[in-house]
């Protein structure tokens, strides 16, 4: 393959940009089978119909309960997992069900940094081979040879060129995570889905990597979907934030709105549980402790998925599914009794960025 095979990039910068990524009704159900005949007896509803868009050059943060479907969403976006339903449009093309062969030219544009730096690196390959693989797979020529390019990348993510010939087991968790980041950056993709890219790093390297991701974004207009549990990191890097619960997006909006005026009770619970690096506040913090067990995605509760643990739940929450409603410009949440909207839903006017869900 040569560079000219890559689909042409839209040139008209002045026109209103179509989103780089547009996701509608995205769904993934993992079948549960029993017995020798592998008869399907149910499904894990890992992702259950989510909608969102990401504009070119933007960072969307994806947060939520462990097991709520974030990784599965990321794997569908990068076509590592086949969606059960819904649509993924990337750069104007429907890639929902592209075959591996048809997807190959797009692989260059869409990369993933994996959550688990231990299982995502081949233990039998050296770091040089791992980080250089994208160049070889896509037959990309680099100016001073692959080795130089790889060593440059290693330095940019805070590793040293002497690591080129070492094997993954010789690295600490944080070092492995940086190898994964270097690999994803190799081909300067348009979209990077980063699953917990910095959680294994100490705060100083974390700051370096975050600054690096931001610099690359400014320099090359990269677009990020960043999955993370650390809400301070998410606030720092995201333009918009989506909060997931049990396979659904329960709130999505501009960073500041979501952090300062969360609408969904689950968002409030998350924000209140963030551990604060302040020993003097250890004993007098108010934290919302969620009651009850997280429900199972095999048998999710009807109507509002959060009602089994919500301290505000009423009868209507158990019977009527709350729609995603716009409460402030671009901020939508799915709750009958939102946290910060005493005057009812926001009426979209001329300053509306995103149309409310119909």
């Amino acid at each position: 393959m040569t560079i000219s095979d890559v689909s042409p990039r839209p040139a008209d910068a002045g026109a209103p940009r179509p989103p780089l990524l547009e996701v509608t009704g995205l769904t993934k159900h993992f079948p549960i089978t029993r017995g020798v005949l592998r008869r399907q007896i149910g499904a894990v509803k890992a992702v259950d119909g989510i909608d969102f868009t990401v504009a070119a050059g933007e960072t969307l943060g994806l947060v939520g309960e462990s097991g709520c479907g974030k990784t599965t969403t990321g794997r569908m976006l990068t076509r590592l997992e086949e969606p059960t339903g819904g649509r993924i449009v990337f750069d104007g093309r429907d890639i929902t069900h592209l075959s591996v062969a048809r997807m190959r030219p797009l692989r260059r544009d869409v990369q993933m940094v994996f959550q688990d730096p231990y299982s995502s690196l081949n233990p039998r390959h050296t770091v040089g081979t791992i980080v250089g693989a994208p160049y070889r797979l896509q037959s990309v020529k680099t100016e001073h040879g692959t080795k130089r390019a790889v060593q440059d990348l290693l330095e940019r993510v805070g590793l040293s060129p002497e690591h080129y010939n070492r094997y993954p087991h010789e690295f600490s968790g944080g070092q492995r995570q940086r190898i994964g980041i270097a690999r994803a950056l190799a081909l300067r993709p348009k979209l990077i889905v980063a699953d917990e890219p910095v959680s294994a790093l100490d705060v100083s390297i974390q700051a370096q990597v975050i600054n690096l991701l931001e610099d690359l974004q400014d320099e090359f207009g990269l677009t990020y979907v960043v999955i993370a549990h650390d809400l301070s990191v998410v606030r720092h890097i995201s333009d918009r934030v989506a909060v997931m619960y049990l396979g659904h997006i329960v709130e999505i909006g501009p960073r500041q709105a979501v952090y300062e005026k969360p609408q969904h009770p689950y968002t409030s619970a998350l924000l209140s549980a963030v551990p604060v690096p302040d020993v003097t506040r250890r004993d007098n913090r108010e934290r919302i402790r969620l009651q009850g067990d997280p429900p199972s995605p095999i048998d999710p509760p009807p109507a509002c998925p959060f009602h089994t643990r919500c301290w505000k739940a009423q009868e209507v929450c158990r019977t009527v599914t709350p729609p995603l409603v716009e409460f402030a410009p671009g901020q939508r949440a799915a709750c009958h009794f939102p946290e910060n909207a005493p005057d009812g839903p926001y009426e979209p006017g001329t300053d509306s960025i995103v149309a409310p869900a119909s």
Partner: protein
Amino acid sequence: MNRPVEEWASLVPMEDDAPTAFLDVRDLRIHFPTDDGLVKSVDGLSFTLERGRTLGIVGESGSGKSVTSLGILGLHKGQHARISGQVWLDGEELVGASPEHVRRLRGKKMAMIFQDPLSAMHPFYKVGDQIVEAYRVHNEVSKKQARKHAIDMLGRVGIPQPSERVDDYPHQFSGGMRQRAMIAMALSCDPELLIADEPTTALDVTVQAQILDLVRELQSEFNSAVMVITHDLGVVAELADDILVMYAGKAVEQGSARELFTAAEHPYTWGLLSSMPRLDRDRQDRLVPIAGSPPSLINVPEGCAFHPRCRFCELSAPRSLTEVPVMTETSPGHRVACHLEPAERRRLWAEEVQPLL
């Protein structure tokens, strides 16, 4: 390297008397020979931990935190690692003990929550069966009772429908669920020493709060000693009584959690505190990492290993370039390895570091 061993002698009181602390690590060194040279992952580390207390270990990624904990559990034995120093646990020395003996201590006497869930979970066995097996090694109970205990533990770490999911294989769990299953396994025998290596980084904050509560419960119920390794300074601030800061295989600062957050004295600790984004502060435009790259553990910088990256190197030169600083008490229970005068460090903290946090 040509560093005389005597230099380390002053770091720890090297008396040969049996220690009184529950866990007493003395001058631990763990080195790995590689093609490029000797990797000094842990290089003269000493600390103590009492029952009922929690020690938080923070530090550079790659500074030897996980290698230290694997060393305490005797999990480098049989590998090509070179280990020296002493690890005293409840009056018994473990570095010189037989691998067989140390293996029997794992589970009940000491247990570990691994940073890497896959190394603790076998991919081909059901999650529940693995917990059952770990439990039955130290408890004479029937399979049925052990299974009930496993389901109970999975429930306590917040796995939904534990009685169904107990029969899942690890790959059917999300990252955070695998982490929790491993926590359930480590806690199933109520260990006296719990080493938790990044126990909650894969978990959302509400589950994290639940796990931290569980660790506190274990501690108050069984008076366990807990060593928690984490990059999340918020978790440390919430859980730890004392904090140990590591850099390049060595301790550079140790003290009470309160002291380290309100009166830190080592420039590396200052760098950590300045790097993190904080939800309890306004959002900064740009984060402030420590300049430079982590040191090579093969050619560790001469003198103070942190000197190539230290903002205050000039103030402590030329000693910082030639002489390894040793851990010295600066106030009761607070030790620092830095050549700057204590008064100078306190001034820098108060004038240049703390105001920007």
